[in-house]
């Protein structure tokens, strides 16, 4: 325990509590909170000493609400910055309920990165799932409602798996404190599975592209930041070096590329790009060396920044034109110069152009793979790195702002007003700043390492990768259709065959039930008829008998009594 007065609330709780005035207040008061709360949280975060912690005893549990680690502080900083930028961007257009949900969501994500044990983690994990569902639902359409519900189902399932795992760990006597989970038990695998659901790992990678684009243009900016990156954080905190994560990460990287290639909705392209980039980080966590962990943390930070910029760009386009299908967009560069500029910087950052953030972070991951002599991993990561050109890198800005169609048929299309513009520019600035001040950024990473990205060979190699890839993109451009289409994913199995099978089972059971019911009813009717024949008003047991016959019966019964008594 510390006597630090700032411990009254953790940064995450500050953000969560700010949701209340944001939900209640309106106008400038509300905006003040939106802008001030992240700044306060950020200042608080960086006033903590490097090993600060705060434990609260709730019944028999010790909840470590605060447990500062280097990686946690980096992730939390990225979250707070993204929240602040997104808040600026959403200041004028987002609904109250969306903003309040976003603050709870972001606060929970920050709390996850700053907490010190699995139980606290789980509490904020679930809060995050609920609040993010609210963010999706805040969009208000029927499609958003349905997508939000699917999203909630996936995450509640993940939560249940995680809770089962945590309970299993506790039952095994393993510690629930922050740190690599050592024991190789079923519980550990359940915790891992619970984390991976949020990371968008197979087989549930589909939920990212399914749910996020259903949110509002502003909502998706936030959604893209928190859930998957908290997953990366908890993976690198609890599962660094778990080699099973390498193939999972590679699958996600390839999955993101391929699905983005076939996608025509620009926001969905960016959603698949998230899976692709999170795949890098998951693979890095799987590699597990110091460089790889540094790379995962650094890339998460960089990715949050440029993806925020890109999504704000896409959000501006959608807010001002109402469109997010590639075939409806294009040629907006002149109408939205600020947005275009920032998005181009963000795209460059996503590709890893030298002097941008991704150049110095992704190279850590790929370098780590090379150091460990993981040939296939290195190869796939490099290929996927080049393939970013086909989604967030060149394709997204091209489709949105530059493709040769005239923009005459598009109504609207203008830069956001000054807070949004400021957010875009600040985000773009961070993307470049991180790339330029590489060594200073590296000092923030979990472990200090000696890595110099700006060697001649690295810069040349990266350009050798990107330039041909870009050329290839323009060459193959006519081959990639921009017609909207439905992409099949693994959730098809849930939605079609399983649904059909389920319906079939229900029908069969129903038919069976009906047959039993018929049998039951017919035997009831037969039984009833029998009863009625004998007991009904005209039945032998209830009709009035002639007096003489009763007397005869009396005699018979008397005789039988006499015989019975004499026995």
């Amino acid at each position, binding site marked *: 325990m510390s006597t630090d007065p700032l411990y009254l609330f953790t940064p995450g709780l500050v953000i969560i509590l700010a949701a209340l005035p944001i939900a209640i207040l309106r106008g400038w008061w509300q905006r003040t909170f939106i802008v001030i709360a992240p700044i306060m949280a950020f200042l608080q975060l960086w006033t903590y000493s490097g090993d600060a912690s705060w434990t609260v005893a709730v019944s028999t549990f010790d909840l470590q609400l605060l447990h500062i680690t280097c990686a946690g502080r980096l992730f939390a900083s990225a979250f707070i910055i993204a929240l602040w930028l997104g808040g600026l961007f959403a200041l004028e257009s987002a609904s109250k309920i969306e903003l309040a949900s976003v603050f709870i969501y972001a606060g929970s994500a920050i709390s996850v990165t700053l907490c010190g044990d699995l139980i606290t983690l789980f509490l904020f994990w679930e809060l995050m799932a609920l609040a993010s569902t609210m963010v999706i639902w805040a969009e208000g359409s029927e499609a958003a409602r349905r997508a939000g519900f699917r999203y909630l189902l996936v995450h509640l399932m993940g939560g249940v798996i995680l809770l089962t795992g945590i309970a299993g760990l506790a039952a095994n006597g393993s510690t629930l404190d922050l740190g690599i989970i050592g024991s190789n038990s079923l519980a550990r695998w359940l915790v891992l599975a619970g984390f991976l659901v949020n990371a968008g790992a197979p087989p549930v990678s589909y939920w990212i592209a399914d749910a996020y684009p259903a949110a509002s243009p502003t909502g998706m900016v936030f959604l893209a930041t928190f859930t998957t990156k908290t997953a990366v954080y908890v993976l690198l905190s609890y599962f660094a070096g778990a080699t099973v994560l390498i193939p999972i990460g590679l699958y996600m990287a390839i999955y993101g590329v391929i699905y983005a290639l076939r996608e025509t909705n620009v926001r969905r392209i960016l959603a698949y790009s998230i899976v692709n980039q999170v795949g890098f980080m998951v693979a890095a966590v799987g590699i597990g060396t110091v460089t790889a962990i540094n790379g995962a943390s650094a890339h998460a930070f960089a990715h949050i920044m440029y993806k925020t910029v890109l999504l704000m760009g896409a959000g501006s386009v959608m807010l001002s034109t109402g469109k997010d299908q590639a075939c409806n967009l294009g040629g907006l560069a002149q109408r939205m110069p600020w947005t275009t500029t920032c998005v181009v910087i963000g795209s460059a950052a996503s590709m890893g152009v030298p002097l941008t953030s991704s150049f110095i972070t992704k190279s850590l991951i790929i370098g780590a793979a090379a150091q460990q002599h993981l040939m296939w991993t290195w190869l796939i990561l490099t290929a996927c790195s080049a393939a970013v050109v086909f989604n967030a890198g060149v394709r997204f800005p091209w489709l949105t702002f530059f493709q040769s169609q005239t923009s005459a048929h598009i109504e609207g299309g203008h830069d956001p007003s000054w807070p949004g513009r400021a957010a875009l520019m600040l985000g773009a600035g961070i993307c470049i700043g991180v790339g330029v001040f590489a060594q200073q950024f590296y000092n923030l990473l979990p472990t200090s390492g000696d890595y110099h990205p700006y060697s001649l060979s690295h810069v040349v190699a990266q350009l050798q990768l990107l330039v041909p890839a870009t050329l290839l993109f323009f060459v193959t451009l006519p081959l990639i259709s921009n017609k909207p289409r439905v992409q099949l994913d693994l959730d098809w199995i849930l939605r079609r065959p399983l649904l059909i099978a389920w319906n079939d089972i229900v029908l069969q059971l129903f038919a069976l039930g009906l047959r039993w019911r018929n049998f039951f009813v017919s035997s009831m009717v037969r039984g009833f008829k029998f009863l009625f024949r004998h007991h009904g*008003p005209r039945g032998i047991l209830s009709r009035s008998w002639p007096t003489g016959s009763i007397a005869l019966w009396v005699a018979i019964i008397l005789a039988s009594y006499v015989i019975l008594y004499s026995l």
Partner: protein
Amino acid sequence: MSHLPILQVIIPLLAAPLCIVFNNRRIAWFVALCATWASFGVSLLIAQQVLQSGALSYDIGGWPAPWGIDYYVDSLNAFVLLIVTGISALALPYANRSVEQEIDPRSQPYFYSLLLVCLAGLLGISITGDAFNMYVFLELSSLSSYALIGMGPRRRALTAAYQYLVMGTIGATFILIGIGLLYSLTGSLNIQDISYQLHANNIIGSGNRTLLTAFAFITVGLSLKLALFPLHLWLPNAYTYAPSVITIFLASTATKVAIYMLLRFCYCVVGSESIFQLTLGQIVLLPSLAAIIVSSVVAIFQYDIKRMLAYSSIAQIGYITLGLSMSNHSGLSAAILHMFNHALMKGLLFMTMGAVSYSVGSVYLTDFRGLGRRMPFTMGAFIVGGLSLMGIPMTAGFVSKWMLVQAAIELGWWDVVILILIGSLLAVIYIWRVVETAYFNPLLELEEEEIGEAPLSLLIPMWLMVIANIYFGINSAIPVEFAQQAATLLLGGM
């Protein structure tokens, strides 16, 4: 005070001719009312004395027991006296308006006179310690009840009364033959003395044929009178077509008194240790179970609700004889307690029938449509009576049925337990039919005619019965005490 036992019989017996002498229906009713209330008071005093100082004995004319007739009251017949006078004390205030409507004004003094004679007969059976005297009172009560049933408002009352007359006479004759055979064996008519003679001369142990035949006649005769299952055929018509008051009165008292006679003869004459009653138990068991199930099912199919309740009565008598057939203390206590509780619930249910018949004119199921709204107090009372009949906790019916189930469990007769519960379920069905019709089947617009709640003079006795049903369901200490004392007495011999 020492003349209480004879007062019990003599008050209604002497009041009966007064009704005819005055020949005015109002005065006749008032005389009958006073007589029954006086009887009730007397029976309360007797019960108090019996509880305090044990059995009472009264030698008529000062002739001591084996030679003269003695009246002998122990806790068993004190209880029966209470049932009979209590029900009549409630039935008489009820009778005023009901009889006024149902019976020709000129016959009304005769009606009250006959009712008092019947009451005197039933009380005489209950109180006397002399077997032949018992037969005389049985004939007294039977003959008057034939006439009373015959006064029913529908013409079929006459055939019902006639059939009851034939059956009742056969029963009474059988009982007389049985008593005669006992007399030939022992030379005595006093029940205690017969028992003493049988034991002293070792007639019981030797399997005497005369004794066996005597008992066969008595049990069959009594089975007829108490409407044990295959011999119940007179009962549905008699109850259905009798005037409402008579149905209330007979259903609650006449069969109970017959059961009392059976208990007296089986347990007090032969004694509890005898092989007979084991045989009796076996013989009565099957008809009892058949009565519970078959009569309940028949009741479900009845459209005349009074007739439905008559069949229900047969089933309830089945419960009583079932307890009797168990021949153990808890079974007998349950049987005796159920005599009391059945009088309460069936008295109440037939009172509601009388009220419905008073307001609506008949008691077919279709007549009950919408009555839940039009006669809320009557139907409320019906529901309480129905709950009691089903044996729902907090009603009187529950206590005795619970005791009966416990007795069956004590003996390990699980199949009987299940049959008892099935019987209760069947009761739920036939009561529910009426409740559903009354509360959920509204009258058609066209049929709207002014049907109001029954007059207060019907409602007050009815709701006193409702209170009794609930009170003795919650606090059953007094009747249970009586029943257990009586059971101890029967099993301990006289």
